Every structure is written in structure tokens, then in C-alpha cells.
């Protein structure tokens, strides 16, 4: 199949950037979206042009490195799918495909379609962990956790930190990400001692990074490749308000 690509090209953080039209030819419907980009890049290099810079790593849908706003939808048209797991059979021959980087003040563009997501790392550094003494692994049954709670913790822990929630939010809000990182610990006994401090510190860092607020559009939930529900945002709000207003340490 042949495709009419509209790709964001930007040579560096200081460059203004622009959309560029690129014709993709000889694309197989069985290629993944990133394999399609690999093919386009090989053709660009063969023609002596700059290849398109884009983020990728595991290509198995589990690392959260790939991104891409595809025709205005984070990770493209398929639900619960990362860009690397999106396949070209989701498109038709002759389609126009718009590719843009995640857009947020806290995600500055590095080059073309690559953005700097270290603001997410700083939010996690602010409190997305449990402080434990290292040593021998404890017995598996040392902490009894009800199955339902363990499942909820896993639902939140499925977050791969790709940033699709921010990219798709009309407000550029990171609340689904932060809520998932708070939520997976809030549902486990190990997360309890630092629960209040964690909620306050991580939300404070989220605000410092310049992410927007939640207007309950729930666009984040709709594009999340791991289908993390917005219930965790409600739980984060509760944790944050309780911790902040009651002055819990």
C-alpha cells in the first residue's frame, strides 16, 4: 500500500518545526506502524535525506517508549494499543496519516516526533516508591493482601508511563499517570506508611512541571494503552485532599 504521510519535522528543541509531506510506498498491511516508519526512513536515507526521529524500544507494547499522535489520537485508532502494536492493516491504501509528537509544556520536543518525558521521572522521584530496608526477600505470605485489592494495585501498576494521557487530554493534564503511580502503592500494605506524604509530594511535582488540571473529560482513559480507569484519579484526589487539609505526614 502507498500512504500520504504528514510528519512533524523539527531539527532540535530550538527549531520552530513544521509539517512535512512524505510519500510512503510499498508498505505491507502486516507491518507494524513503526516498521512502516523504518521502511520510510530507509527510503529517506537512500535518497540522501534526514530520517524521521521517533521514540521506540521494546516494540512489544510494554515499555512505554513509543508515542505518536496519529490523526489526532494518541497511539492511533486502535483501542488499548501502543503505536508499536498498531498495524498497517488498520489503514487503507492511499490514506493520509498525520503524525505529531505529544504536545505539552512538560514534554518539550527533542527532535521530530521525540519528546522529553523526564518530567514523569521527576514526579516518580518525588514519592512514587516505598522506603524499605534491603535484605533477604520476605516470605511471600508475610503480608496478606486480599485478591480484589491486589488486582486493583495491578490495574494501576500496568501504567507504562507513555504519556498518551497527557497528549490526549484537552488540558494537557498528567492526572491519570500520577493517579496510577499513587494508586498502585495505595492499594498495597507496603504503600501505607508514606501514603499521605507521597500524594502531596507527587501532586506538587506534577504542578511544578506545568501539567494542566483535570476537567473530567476522560479522554485519557479512552486512549490509555493499558486501559487504566479514571477511578484512580478520584482516589488520588481523595488521598491528596485528605493529606493536605488534615496535614498528615
Amino acid at each position, binding site marked *: 500500500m502507498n500512504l500520504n504521510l*504528514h510528519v512533524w519535522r523539527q531539527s532540535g528543541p530550538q527549531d520552530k518545526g513544521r509539517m512535512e509531506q512524505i510519500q510512503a510506498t510499498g508498505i505491507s498491511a502486516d507491518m507494524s506502524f513503526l516498521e512502516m516508519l523504518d521502511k520510510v526512513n530507509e527510503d529517506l536515507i537512500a535518497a540522501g535525506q534526514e530520517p524521521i526521529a521517533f521514540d521506540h524500544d521494546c516494540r512489544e507494547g510494554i515499555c512505554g517508549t513509543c508515542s505518536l499522535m496519529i490523526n489526532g489520537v494518541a497511539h492511533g485508532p486502535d483501542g488499548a494499543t501502543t503505536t508499536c502494536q498498531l498495524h498497517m492493516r488498520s489503514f487503507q491504501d492511499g490514506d493520509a496519516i498525520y503524525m505529531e509528537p505529544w504536545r505539552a509544556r512538560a514534554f518539550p520536543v527533542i527532535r521530530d516526533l521525540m519528546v522529553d518525558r523526564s518530567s514523569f521521572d521527576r514526579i516518580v522521584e518525588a514519592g512514587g516508591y516505598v522506603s524499605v530496608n534491603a535484605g533477604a526477600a520476605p516470605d511471600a505470605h508475610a503480608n496478606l493482601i486480599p485478591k480484589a485489592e491486589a488486582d486493583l494495585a495491578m490495574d494501576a501498576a500496568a501504567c507504562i508511563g507513555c504519556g498518551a494521557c497527557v497528549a490526549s487530554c484537552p488540558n494537557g493534564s498528567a492526572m491519570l499517570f500520577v493517579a496510577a503511580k499513587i494508586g498502585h502503592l495505595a492499594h498495597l500494605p507496603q504503600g501505607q506508611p508514606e501514603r499521605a506524604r507521597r500524594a502531596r509530594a507527587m501532586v506538587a511535582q506534577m504542578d511544578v512541571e506545568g*501539567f494542566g488540571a483535570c476537567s473530567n473529560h476522560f479522554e485519557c482513559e479512552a486512549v490509555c494503552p493499558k486501559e487504566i480507569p479514571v477511578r484512580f484519579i478520584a482516589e488520588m484526589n481523595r488521598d*491528596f485532599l485528605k493529606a493536605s487539609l488534615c496535614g498528615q505526614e
Partner: protein
Amino acid sequence: MNRTAKTLRSTIGAKALMAVTGVALLLFVLGHMVGNLQVFGGRDMLNKYAHTLQSLGPLLWVIRGALLAILLLHVWAALQVTRANRAARPVAYEHARQDLATSYAARTMLVSGVVVVLFLIYHVLHFTVGAVDFAGSYGGHADLDGTEVHDVYGMVIGGFKHLPTALIYVVANLILVMHIAHGAASLLQTLGFRSQANAGKVRAFGLGFGVLIGIGNLAMPLSIMFGMVGD
């Protein structure tokens, strides 16, 4: 106090302030509607209700002041959040971001909010102050059990018999319904009461509250406009 101020300046705190003041405003809108529905009970019933409220004296001004303060806090929180949201995405997408989950009401909260505030100003100038009275129905008096009182009933009937005035109220209330339909459901999520299990009920509550206010508030101008109520 410092702790509260710091919390309110955070994105979640500002949203919580908007939600809590929203609850107060919803209760006011509900009470206001129930009180005014007494127009269907006839001249004496509505005039007596209005006279009772006006006889509250200083307490009336305390209530008015509190309502104004709550409204201003609601607007301040909305502006604070809007400013943060706009700043969060300085470069827009070239291909419009597609909406997959949100609603028209949710996307237009700022616009509907501004319309409601403008309508509120008009509404107070119309029925409370009497400064903007296109229908010319303000300022009459009526007899209530031997006492001369403001003829609120006559003012309302005369006001809504004037077609442009009635239409302003109809349109403004439809926009208010939309604002409430998103707001009433949204505040439950913001304050942390929404879960996957009750998500449907939360949505229905917002829509139901909005529709309830819509039916009550639209019944008055529409029934008077079509001559079903009044003398």
C-alpha cells in the same frame, strides 16, 4: 490557614474548591426553583413567600453576601484552572485532537459558565433591582391579608408574558442545564466519590439534576408565555 491556601492553589485543590462551591450553588439553584414554583399556587402564595424572604432583614443580606462569595470563589477557581490548562499546551496540534470520550457539555463549561454569570447579573437587575425591565412589570403592589406587599406574582407574570424576556430565561436555563449536567457529575469525581461501580449512577445523577432544574425553571416562563398561568 496557610496549609489551606497552599492546597487551594494546587490543581487538585482548585478543582476541589470549584466542586465544593458547586455543591452550594446547586443547593441554592434547587431551593430557588422550589420557592419560585409557588407561582403556580397563585398570587397570594408567591407574594407571601417573597414577603417572608424580604422580611428577613439583615439575615437576607448575610445570605446574599454568602452566595456572592461562593459564586466568586467558584469563578476564581475556574479561572485558575483554565489558566493552568491553557499554559499546559503552548503548541497546538496541527491535526485536531480527536475527542473520544468527552461530551459537548464538558467541553463548553467555560462558555456556559460565562453565560450563566451574565444571565445572573441580568436576572438580579431584572427581578431584584428592577433596573433592567424590558417588560415593564416591576414595582407593582398587591394586598396580602390586609398588608401592602410587593406584587412579585404580577411582576413574574407580566415579565414572562413579554416574549423576548421569556426567551432570554428559556435559553439561559437550557445552558444552565448543560452546565449542571456536567458539573454535578464532575464534582463527585473531583471529590473522590466516583468509582467504576457507581460511574453510571454518577452520570445519571448529573443529568438528572440538570433535567430536574430544567423542567422546574422552564415550566415558569413557558407556561406563562403560552398563557397557561396568570390572569
